[in-house]
């Protein structure tokens, strides 16, 4: 299937510091009476690259959406970069400007050009001068290899290009942490690679990343840690080699056999 092994690059060396980037303690979330996330404890260190996988409905997207307060949690605490996530809007906007996010459906702004998509938040949130913001934007657009599309509109780009623009748009805010919510799930198989390549390049620069993805090749190659979730709980977490070759829990074994067994 859409595996990305043998990309020609060696597995990224581990660069994990002792600095805590995200600390989640005893976090619980309910949708109405439905208990989506149960007693989540998770510490992410600066520079760590974590892949979260699990069957659909297991709460993995909800978990990372809680980190930048797109979803509200009802119990426990989330601390991002030393800022405790509370209902204070100032706190939330501060965290959101430090945490970049890429969505399954890109969520680019269709009424703005690619360049305007990338400069909007730096100009309005960071108060960067327009010229400087445009230079930064072009720098990151070059990095994701689409500088020539800067003056087009999102609707004129392919899915893979749009997702790379979305990554560049997040990077323009110079985030310390990047969240990826199934970034390749809405893409054609041949476009998946270009997006994964961009994410691998990002990982190699030491960005702290949390990815919800089913790309197990990506997980093997880039992740320091793989987390398996089921029914709103963290069932297993381990280094990728151990996780894939020697899963401990039955649920993980079943899941891996289903997604890798063909």
């Amino acid at each position, binding site marked *: 299937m859409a595996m990305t092994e043998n990309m020609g690059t060696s597995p990224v060396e581990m660069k994990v510091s002792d600095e805590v980037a995200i600390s989640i303690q005893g976090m619980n979330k309910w949708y109405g009476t439905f208990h989506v996330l149960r007693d989540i404890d998770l510490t992410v260190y600066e520079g760590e690259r974590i892949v979260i996988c699990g069957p659909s409905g297991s709460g993995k997207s909800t978990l990372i959406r809680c980190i*930048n307060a*797109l979803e509200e949690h009802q119990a426990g605490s989330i601390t991002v970069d030393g800022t405790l996530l509370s209902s204070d*809007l100032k706190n939330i*906007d*501060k965290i*959101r*400007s430090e*945490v*970049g*996010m890429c*969505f399954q*459906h*890109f*969520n*680019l*702004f*269709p*009424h703005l050009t690619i360049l305007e998509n990338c400069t*909007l*938040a730096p100009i*309005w*949130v960071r108060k960067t001068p327009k010229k400087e913001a445009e230079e930064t934007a072009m720098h990151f657009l070059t990095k994701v290899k689409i500088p020539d599309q800067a003056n087009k*509109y*999102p*609707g*004129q780009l392919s899915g893979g290009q749009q997702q790379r623009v979305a990554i560049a*748009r*997040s990077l323009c*805010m110079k985030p310390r942490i990047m969240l990826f919510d199934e970034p390749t799930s809405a893409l054609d198989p041949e476009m998946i690679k270009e997006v994964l390549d961009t994410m691998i390049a990002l990982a190699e620069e030491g960005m702290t990343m949390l990815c919800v993805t089913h790309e197990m090749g990506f997980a093997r190659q880039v992740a320091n840690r793989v987390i398996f979730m089921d029914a709103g709980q963290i069932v297993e977490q381990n280094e990728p080699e151990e996780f894939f070759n020697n899963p401990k829990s039955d649920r993980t074994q079943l899941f891996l056999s289903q997604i890798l067994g063909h």
Partner: protein
Amino acid sequence: MSDTQQHSVAFVRTEAIPEREPPYTASGPLKWMKDNLFATPFNGILTIVAVYLIYMILSSALPWMLNGIWTTSSLAECRTVLDGAVGACFSVLTERWNQLLFGFKYPSELYWRPGLAFMLLFVAIAPVLFFDLPRKLLIFTGLYPFIAYYLVWGGAIGVPLVALAGCVAGAVFYQSFVARNFALGFLGGVIAAFVTWYIGGLFIPDGANNTAWMRAVPSRDLGGFMLNMMLGVTCVSLSLPLGIALALGRQSSMPLIKVICVVFIEFIRGVPLITLLFVASVMLAYFFPPDSTVDLFLRVVIMITVFSAAYIAEVIRGGLAALPKGQYEGADSLGLDYAQATRLIILPQALKISIPGIVNVAVGLFKDTTLVSVISMFDLVGMIRGPILASTAWNGVYWELLGFAAVLFFVVCYGISQYSQWLERRLATDHR
């Protein structure tokens, strides 16, 4: 076929086939007529019937129009000139031209004032309608309401100046405090404006209108198509921001604001405009402080604005609902706050989707300004129904007068519609 190898299966063309003329039935007027007018027998019958109907209408309307009389001074005189022949009596338009445009009480030596205000209107709305024009022109747009007020109503120059000063004070206060707290900036701005108006009002002496350089014209002297234009332009430009605010309020997560907006919208939409206009002319005075003589024009503007704002709010709510949730999340995830996300991401897209609906309301509103004739304001229709048709000279001239009114309204409404289509094409960025 001599140059192809006929006896083998493989085929190689060694000589290109030269271009030939198409058969004459494949293009040209005959082909067009066959495709578009006589494709099937039924289509042919429809074509013939349609042509016959057009002929019927034109054969009676054209002589009537072309044979029109433009120079007589009464209907009787007009009939004498026509001497039994078919012909329109357009002289009512030429003779009552000023009344049709300005009403019958506006001082005729002051017609240049509303005329100038009308010319300046184009300068003022140009940068709003065509956003490629230099943004500096918007300064004039901001000043235009005060200039137009002074031109049309005249009177003491202090009134528009104080009104302008109040708006500037409010805007300055809002600008300097909105960064700290939106509610503080907004409410403070409103209070600053009212304080300025109150203090400024003290400086305008009583009776300043009588000694003013520009002669004062009271609202009851306004009339004709000028009144329709004034009501239409004022109400459209006021009801759009109010409608946006109501639509956003209806989506608000604050229950109190939401309830207020829902009740307001549903109540206003559930009441006929004519009722609201009667309320404006008769009952609205009860809502203002005693002895305050709030102008009838202002009361009518409030009612029409409120009425169309409720409709525009619902149209924009449709646009907001059509936006995918991802747009809100995309804006949120970048750290934009509510005001920024709404202004930069949500509204530009929602308004673009709502353009046809908003234009629908605007065109409807403009035509509904003729309803003020019912509360004895002499707008274009009021003038026709009242002073002109009631006069002995022109009693009985219906087609010419109402046709003229129809043409004036059609020109404006068609213009609005064409502009909106241009705007939609100009803003289309998604499917290029």
